[in-house]
């Protein structure tokens, strides 16, 4: 089975198609409990999570509200305690491979250069080397990494490391991109630029993105839809459709609607007692 799938991916890559359709996610009653007995920790749910093919959805909420857990469940990297998740209509039983993952920390291998970190996807999946290298070069160009190919992670800035990490998550053209606070460790100026670069990449390929963040600006600035979560156990308490034109500007305050969306999230957080302003 994996062989068939690899074949399909490499054929698509050889054909130069970069328009693989995004996967759809349908989760019903997803619940996660860690441990058992009196030690058990009910981390998440039950939640329903529906993401359409090619949609950009953010999960926003306070620390420990189960956002990251949700991502791991959707990737099939942790089993759900209860509930079902379907990817493209197929029930999830094990880790899915048509996916790219980016964490807050770049998690690059220190002993590989930037390009070889990205090409790890090719080596482990046994994909066509030339096609993947071309794809990697394209991504490097779009992410402003050209010239950094042969540098080791320690020779790159924090922003560049995270760009390499994004390239690694996309080089094999997955149908889904899962990002867990990918810009959380970056400075505000770098974050605004990388947010835009991610949006441009997404507009081009329309992969399904599940984006986890603490930042209201990032959530509203990037998403088609924002799901607001509260902990614990994590549940989805608000859902906001973001109708702002794309690509969105650096300064989101240009849109009066941005303030309205942001206001709604702040209000939700205040009503939950996450913010205690006097």
């Amino acid at each position, binding site marked *: 089975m994996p062989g068939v799938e690899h074949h399909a991916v490499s054929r698509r890559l050889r054909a130069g198609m970069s328009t693989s359709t995004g996967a759809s996610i349908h989760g019903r009653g997803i619940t996660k409990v860690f441990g058992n007995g009196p030690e058990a920790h009910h981390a998440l749910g039950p939640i329903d999570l529906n993401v359409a093919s090619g949609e950009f959805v953010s999960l926003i909420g306070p620390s420990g509200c189960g956002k990251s857990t949700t991502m791991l469940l959707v990737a099939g990297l942790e089993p759900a305690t209860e509930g079902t998740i379907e990817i493209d209509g197929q029930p999830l039983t094990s880790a899915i491979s048509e*996916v790219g993952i980016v964490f807050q920390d770049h*998690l690059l291998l220190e*002993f590989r250069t930037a390009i070889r970190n990205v090409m790890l996807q090719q080596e482990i999946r046994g994909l066509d080397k030339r096609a993947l290298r071309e794809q990697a070069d394209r991504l490097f160009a779009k992410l402003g990494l050209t010239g950094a190919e042969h540098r080791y992670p*320690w020779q790159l800035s924090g922003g560049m490391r995270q760009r390499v990490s994004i390239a*690694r998550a996309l080089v094999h053209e997955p149908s889904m991109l899962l990002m867990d606070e990918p810009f959380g460790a970056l400075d505000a100026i770098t974050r605004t630029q990388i947010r835009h670069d991610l949006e441009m990449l997404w507009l081009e390929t329309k992969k399904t993105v599940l984006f986890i963040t603490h930042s209201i600006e990032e959530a509203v600035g990037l998403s088609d839809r924002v799901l607001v979560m509260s902990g614990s156990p994590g549940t989805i308490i608000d859902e906001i459709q973001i109708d702002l034109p794309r690509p969105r500007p650096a300064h989101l305050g240009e849109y009066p609607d941005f303030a309205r969306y942001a206001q709604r999230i702040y209000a939700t957080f205040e009503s939950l007692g996450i913010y205690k302003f006097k």
Partner: protein
Amino acid sequence: MAATITATGSALSKHWLRSEWISALAYPALSVIAFLAVWEVLIRVYDVPLWLVPKPSDFLARLSSDFPLIAGHAWATSKTIILGFALGAAIAVPLAFFIVSIPALERGLFPVIVFLNIMPKTVIGPIIVVWFGIGPLVSVIIVFLMCFFPVLVDSMSGFRAVDPRLYYITRSMGASELQTLRYVRVPASGRYIFAGMKIGIVKAVEGVIIAEFIASSAGLGFMIMRASSFMDLTLMFSGLIATAVVALFFNGMMLSAERLLMPWARHPTAD
């Protein structure tokens, strides 16, 4: 114009490089020469007898006149170091991986390993002499024990060092256990294994001399011990210098191997 600038630039950097070399080599050399000169002069002025403290000119001359003897013993010492060290590293690294792979084993063995690592290994010398007699094997075993534990302890931290979230990424790539080992865990542990080996080689040189003092018929330690029984202080000082050269050689080899095998490790930390 551009060519001129480049030419001047490279000439400048070459000049800078040269002055860098001078400060790296010439100053230490000068201070050593000054130290030996003061030594030489003091011994001559106060007329200290040769059997008490030899002059640098005595033991440096001895180094060349007795070169075959000293070189032969230095070679015997080097062979012991290479054998004991290679054996130690070859067993310690896979064993570290095995121990770390089985959590129960790790929990059970770790205190024992820490205890054995702290215990001075030379105290086992007399016991090993009883078991194996006087000969090159005793020195090899002591060198083995000296470098085995630092390599084992550091390799264990190396195999534990990978951020567990990285395994989420490799699993999403569909990596098998073997692939994760080959592409991630083994290369990631390299920096730690080398750290252990660098400590190991220093301890190996220390250990080999002591082992040769107590139970050997060859090697620099043996040569120094025998010279001591003849009150041949000149040869003892020559042996001391030969030992330092051997130690420098093995340390240099380790550093070169690290630079060659791990070009990324020139930076002190991973992040």
